[in-house]
């Protein structure tokens, strides 16, 4: 029995240690994801990509909690996901703004064209 439990315990320990990270990378990853969330907020992602922003913030919060609890693996995982969410939110915000600008400009051009046609029609009378 001792042998089995020892083997089991060793296997478990191996499993855990294979996936273990230490504190510094985890702290760095959480800091990076905090920056990513801030950048996305500046880009207006709160309005333009609310779902992704909410996910990012929530995961960042849980990453901080994991870091405080010294669960570095979880902290790193959550930070990575928070960063990915924040980056997606930011790029969504940017593309929404650019698309809106392009649409407005197309509208302006359409109006300009109509005006030109009208002017041509009256001048030929």
């Amino acid at each position, binding site marked *: *029995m001792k042998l*089995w*439990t020892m*083997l*089991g315990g060793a*296997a*478990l320990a191996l*499993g855990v240690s294979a*996936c273990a990270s230490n504190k510094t990378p985890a702290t760095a990853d959480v800091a990076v994801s905090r920056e990513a969330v801030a950048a996305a907020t500046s880009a207006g992602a709160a309005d333009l990509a609310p779902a992704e922003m909410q996910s990012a913030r929530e995961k960042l919060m849980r990453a901080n909690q994991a870091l405080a609890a010294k669960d570095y693996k979880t902290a790193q*995982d959550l930070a*990575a*996901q928070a960063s*990915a*969410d924040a*980056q*997606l939110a930011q*790029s*969504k915000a*940017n*593309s929404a*703004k*650019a*698309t809106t*600008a*392009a649409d407005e*400009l*197309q509208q*302006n*051009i359409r109006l*300009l*064209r109509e*005006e*030109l046609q009208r*002017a*041509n029609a009256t*001048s030929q009378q």
Partner: protein
Amino acid sequence: MKKFALMPAAFAVSVLFAACSTTPTTTSQLDQARGDFLAAQNNPSVAANAPLEFKAASDALDRANAAAAKKESLNEIDKLAYIAKQKIATAQEAARAKQAEADVANAGRQRDEIRLEARTAEANQAKANAERAKAEADAAKAQADAAANSARDEAAKNAALQQQLADLQAKQTERGVIITLSDVLFNVDRAELSAEGMRTVQKVADVLMQEPQSVVLVEGFTDSTGTSQHNLELSQRRAESVRAALVGLGVPSGKIGTRGYGEAYPVASNADAGSRQLNRRVEIVLSQNGAPIANRR
């Protein structure tokens, strides 16, 4: 007892190893990520506009696939697959944003072209307007010149007429213009016009031809010598004589009236030969605007 104690531990171990040894090559999350990746790969806009983001997504998917190949836990695979999915979506959004920015630049150019077209059309329109205005101005000037010419002609004609009337010593009165033919233009006590009389009547006819709307009244007068009956007759006959001469020169007969007044309305005293001669006269009254001539008072 030993057996039972062993069981949970052994079970736990076997589960652990089972989990590691029977890892499937994929999860639904990873399948989705692979599908999203293919879509992004086939989107030419992504390759063109967001190569860096696409590379990052590709690397993330590689990590997820590697975890699946190494038969890591479902949880691990899913976590990496999730990140890959988010990065693939990020690449798509980045491509969309770049494309929109290119559209903005393109649209800016289009707008400038349209503005140029509009300004050119405006300029052409202004040019056409200016040409039309010039043509109108030229036509107006031509009209004005023609009017000035005809006014000049009119003035010249008028001056000539005034000169003729002056020659005839015409006087403007309230009844009209009066031209007096004196006694010397008739032979003594006769009604026929002398040669000089005819010349004078010719001048009067010329004036009348220029004023087609005029109405004429020829009035005859004598001095006080002789009977009033004789003088009335003579004065009437002299008036008729002038009228006949005017008609003979082309003045329409319907325009000309005659009247003899005899000794009435003398213009001088009848006391001496000179003043009596003055009374022996024919007066031609012209009403130039065609209104009928008022009677003498």
